[in-house]
Each structure stands twice: as structure tokens, then as C-alpha cells.
């Protein structure tokens, strides 16, 4: 039976904490809060004892799924293991007990660490400078687009649109739009990479930038990247790398060497900081040297042996976040990079590429794999062939839940019908991949022999198949309804 809500467990008058009677003499709420700001009805909070509350959340925690409980093949999300030493380091008093408003002289260690991280990320991506301010991948994208805009305006030209491939993450057009650009789509060719001829048709003197993910969301390296960059640069536009898939490139090649001008990093993907609900994100942005004046302000600089926040940056796009990003998260990424070193980082990328290709090979005989080329860190299966049997990609995803796995990304990228996008981070052992492949092959048999097992899935969980259509058409997130 699903866990009841706290509201359903509530018993009038039950308390988890007993407050002493207020001892402030002559205190009146009216004196500190105008009448119109005071509640007229009682607060409808659940009334519950402390131990019931603890049991509720402890039971819920058993039902949650994360990288600490199992394989998480969510494509383009790089759900890798987060080493626990990061948590130890983040709790060092020298880091956990400082405040961003302290005088600079008293936090030289923390500033030095951030400065070091800026430089390490610059080196990894082949960029001149990095800002650690943006706190999410999408915020990094928007920061990148604002930088492109500031750059073009400084050249005295008004550019109008940003070019985005049809395989791109949905955040790309959203970010470019927020920065004031319209969107033009460039097609992918049959090989699954940018169609150069189409790109030449789309690009013109109004193009501000091309936003590109490399390897792209099909898990393929854009092997014509040199020509792509040339076409964009010839039009006076910039090339932006969506760093979502950077896990495949560490120490093997650098976006800067490919000609990218702006890059964002997802520290919560590539650099193993907590992901999604597990913690705040971090989306630092790096740029080539002629774009550094536009980076968000302040930047951390070093003068002699002294680190300081440099706010004297007249051409900067300004702040994109309070203080200097999510320090605790940046600290974890720093720890990750320092523990691995240069060789460790390139081993990460080599291993995720091997993992993905190993898994892909095992599934080749059972599923349609639209892109035959060796993949990078992720690959796509298509469930299109099962449509006749009434089976869709999400049915396979739901059935995987029955077998104890978090499902891969489904129905994305949009250019492959009924797609399942599987990423196999380096932190997964060969045995884990073997077990996962076995289950997918078993599900393939079920599609032929007992498709209802898929269409009814999940059946082993406390909650069955959700009515996603009804939930979307009649959204109701209020309790009581």
C-alpha cells in the first residue's frame, strides 16, 4: 500500500513538539503585524507526533531510487556515482563555517580553491577563462547567450537568431529565446550529425551563434566539427558548446581546440556533484580570450599571492547569481578533479565510451539501433518496430522499473521515433551492464510473447502506471483538492 500523506495521518491536537507558553509580557501580534497580514483561518498543517514523522520519511527514503541504490542509465544526464569523500571535504569547518560576506583576507583559502577550479576547468575545455557563477546547466546556457549578445553589440551589430540542431536539448532554444534571439533549426543528416548543406542554407549575417552539443544527443561525435565551426565563424557568429555530454571528452579532446567560443559545464553531471533533487547544481561557463570581458561579474583574480573578487569589469553582462555560485558544490567538483588528476579524468571518458559501446553491442541483436557508428558515452535504441504490437518506448521504460532499474531517457531526441537513450557512466561495473542487458533482452522476448506485461507495467511497485494524460490535462497539486 502506498505511504499515506502526512495530512492523512493527522490527528487533531497531536503534537511532535510542545512549545512553552509565551513569556513575553504585554506582547501583541497586532503591534508587529498589520491586521491585513494576519491569517483569518487556522493553519492546516498536519498534526503528528515526532516518531510518526520520522517513520514516514524513513519509509519514503526506502522507496526512493538513486545512483546509490542502482544503475541509472538516464541518457544525457550522466548519472554517475558521487564519491562520499566529497561530503567529508564539504564538511571541513574551514569550508562549512565561512560566510560569503567575510572579509576577503579571511577566506583566502576558499577563494584560492575557486580560482584553482576556474583554471582547471579552463584547461579541461581549452578556454581562456571560466566563471563559476551560474548554478544550473540551463542558466549556463543563458549566460553564454547573454555573452554572445554582449559581444555582438560591442561590435556594433544587432544579430537576430541562434541556430540549434533538431537533436538539441529543449533548454537550448529556451535559453537563446530568453537572451532575446529567435531560433532557427538546422537538420541532422542520415548519419545523425549536423547537415552541413542545411547549415549553410540557414546561416547568414543575422546569425548570433550556433548552439551545439558534442557528442550530440544521439551519442555521436560531430566529426565534421571543424567545417561546422568554419561556416559559423565565416558569418561572424559564435559557436557555443552545450556541455551536457562533456563526460565523453575529458582529456581526450577540448572544445576550445575544436573551435568553440563558449562552453558550459554541468558539474552535477561530468564532475560528480549531487544531481537534481540531491543537491543544487552548477553550470560554470568558459569563453575564449576575446570574450572574457563579457563574463559575469565578479570574477576571482589573483594579484601576487592575494585572491580577490574583481568587480571592475565594465563590459561584463553583470551578475547571474548571488555571491559566487554554489560554493559547496564547486568544492565537491574541485575535490573530484584533484583526486583524479589529468590521467584519471581521461580514464573517465575512455571508460564511459567503452561502457556505452559494450552495452550497445549486447543489445544489437534484440533492438533496432538507428545509428550504427560506434557511439561515445551514450546511444539510442528505437522501439518503432513494436508499434504494431501496441508497444511504445515508455512501455519498455515502465517494464524496466519492474526489474528494479531506473528507466533510460525516452522519446528524446525527437528525431528518432520511440527512442530510448541509454548512458552508461564510467562508474558502472561490467557486471552491472551485463545484468541490465540481460533484462532488456528478456523484455524484448516479452514484447513477442506477452506484451501485456509491458503495457501493464509497473506491477511490482507500490504505485502502478500513472495516468499521465489525465495528470497533464487536469493538473491538481493542492491537498486537499
Amino acid at each position, binding site marked *: 500500500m502506498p505511504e499515506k500523506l502526512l495530512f492523512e495521518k493527522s490527528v487533531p491536537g497531536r503534537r511532535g513538539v510542545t512549545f512553552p507558553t509565551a513569556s513575553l509580557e504585554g506582547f501583541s501580534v497586532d503591534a508587529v503585524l498589520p491586521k491585513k497580514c494576519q491569517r483569518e483561518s487556522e493553519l492546516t498543517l498536519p498534526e503528528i507526533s515526532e516518531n510518526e514523522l520520522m517513520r514516514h520519511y524513513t519509509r519514503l527514503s526506502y522507496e526512493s531510487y538513486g545512483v546509490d541504490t542502482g544503475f541509472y542509465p538516464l541518457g544525457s544526464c550522466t548519472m554517475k556515482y558521487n564519491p562520499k569523500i566529497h561530503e567529508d571535504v564539504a564538511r571541513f569547518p574551514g569550508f562549512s563555517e565561512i560566510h560569503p560576506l567575510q572579509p576577503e583576507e579571511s577566506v583566502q583559502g576558499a577563494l584560492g580553491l575557486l580560482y584553482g577550479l576556474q583554471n582547471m576547468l579552463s584547461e579541461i575545455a581549452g578556454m581562456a577563462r571560466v566563471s563559476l557563477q551560474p548554478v544550473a546547466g540551463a542558466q549556463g546556457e543563458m549566460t553564454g547567450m547573454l555573452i554572445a549578445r554582449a559581444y555582438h553589440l560591442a561590435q556594433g551589430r544587432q544579430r537576430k537568431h541562434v541556430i540549434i540542431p533538431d537533436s538539441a536539448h529543449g533548454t537550448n532554444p529556451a535559453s537563446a529565446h530568453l537572451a532575446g534571439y529567435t531560433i532557427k533549426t538546422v537538420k541532422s543528416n542520415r548519419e545523425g550529425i549536423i547537415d552541413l548543406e542545411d547549415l549553410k542554407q540557414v546561416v547568414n549575417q543575422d546569425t548570433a551563434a550556433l548552439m551545439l552539443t558534442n557528442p550530440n544527443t544521439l551519442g555521436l561525435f560531430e566529426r565534421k566539427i571543424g567545417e561546422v565551426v568554419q561556416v559559423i565563424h565565416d558569418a561572424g557568429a559564435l559557436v557555443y558548446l552545450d556541455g551536457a555530454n562533456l563526460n565523453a571528452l575529458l582529456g581526450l579532446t577540448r572544445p576550445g581546440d575544436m573551435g568553440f567560443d563558449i562552453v558550459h559545464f554541468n558539474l552535477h553531471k561530468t564532475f560528480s556533484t549531487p544531481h537534481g533533487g540531491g543537491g543544487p547544481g552548477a553550470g560554470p561557463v568558459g569563453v575564449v580570450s576575446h570574450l572574457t570581458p563579457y563574463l559575469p561579474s565578479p570574477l576571482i583574480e589573483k594579484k601576487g599571492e592575494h585572491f580577490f573578487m574583481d568587480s571592475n569589469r565594465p563590459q561584463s553582462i553583470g551578475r547571474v547569481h548571488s555571491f559566487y555560485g554554489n560554493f559547496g558544490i564547486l568544492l565537491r567538483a574541485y575535490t573530484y578533479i584533484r583526486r583524479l588528476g589529468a590521467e584519471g579524468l581521461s580514464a573517465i571518458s575512455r571508460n564511459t565510451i567503452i561502457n556505452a559501446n559494450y552495452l550497445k553491442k549486447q543489445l544489437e541483436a534484440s533492438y533496432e539501433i538507428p545509428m550504427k557508428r560506434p557511439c561515445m558515452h551514450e546511444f539510442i535504441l528505437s522501439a518503432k518496430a513494436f508499434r504494431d504490437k501496441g508497444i511504445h518506448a515508455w512501455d519498455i521504460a515502465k517494464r524496466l522499473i519492474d526489474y528494479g532499474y531506473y528507466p533510460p531517457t525516452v522519446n528524446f531526441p*525527437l528525431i528518432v*521515433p520511440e527512442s530510448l537513450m541509454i548512458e552508461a557512466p564510467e562508474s558502472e561495473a561490467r557486471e552491472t551492464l551485463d545484468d541490465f542487458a540481460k533484462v532488456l533482452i528478456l523484455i524484448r522476448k516479452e514484447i513477442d510473447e506477452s506484451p501485456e506485461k509491458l503495457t501493464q507495467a509497473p506491477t511490482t511497485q507500490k504505485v502502478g502506471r500513472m495516468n*499521465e*494524460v489525465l495528470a*497533464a*490535462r487536469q493538473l491538481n497539486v493542492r491537498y486537499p483538492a
Partner: protein
Amino acid sequence: MIQESLLYHKEHEWVRLDGSRATIGISDFAQEALGDIVYLEIPKLGTMLQYGDEVTEIESTKTTSMLYAPVGGKIVAVNEALEGRPELINQDVYGEGWVIVIEMNDPKEANTLMSGKEYASFLENETA
């Protein structure tokens, strides 16, 4: 399912001609690819459109997709029923699932659209 009596646009819209009026919806292929449609903003009456303009976005549980104007002109009717029942597009794509009617500026523009047969081979090419 392709209806021979209709014309089709490469962005997967269908068009039913009645003099200078064009009734427009999305093709069966498009609704099948989108899956359960959960929302679309009903376009405004009187909006002037040029060929290829974005008309409205159609949202399903899977994704969102743009409806493009397969011909230019003025929106003279909109299917208000879709406001509360967007599923009409899934249920009756060439009938009750129509989206808008355009009074065409230049009825000759419809000559650029595909016949049912042409659309069928276009789909085969696209999805091969």
C-alpha cells in the same frame, strides 16, 4: 491513415479546401507521433498569417510540436472545442480535430501542397 481528398503540408498539416477557405489540422501521422495531446493554445481569430508562420504549439505527454500555416491568409474560424477537449485531435484527426480555418490571400498557394499520394511517399522517405 491518409485521406485522399485532403491536401498535405510538409510539416504534417492537412488542408481541406472550400473555395478560398482552407480548414487546417494536423495529420494522422503527426497525432500518432505526438501521442496523447494534452494542451494547445487556441489561435486568435483574425490573426494574419503568411505561409510557414508558426500558428500554435501542440503539447502532448511526450513532446510539443508547432502547427505551421500551410497557406497564408486570415484566421476566420477556430475550433473552440479543443480548449477543453484537445483529445479530439487524437480521436478524430480529420473531423472534429480541425484547428483553424484560413481565408486564403492567394488560393493558388494551395497548389504547392501535396496530394494524399504525394504525402504518403513523402512520409516513407522521411521515416525510412
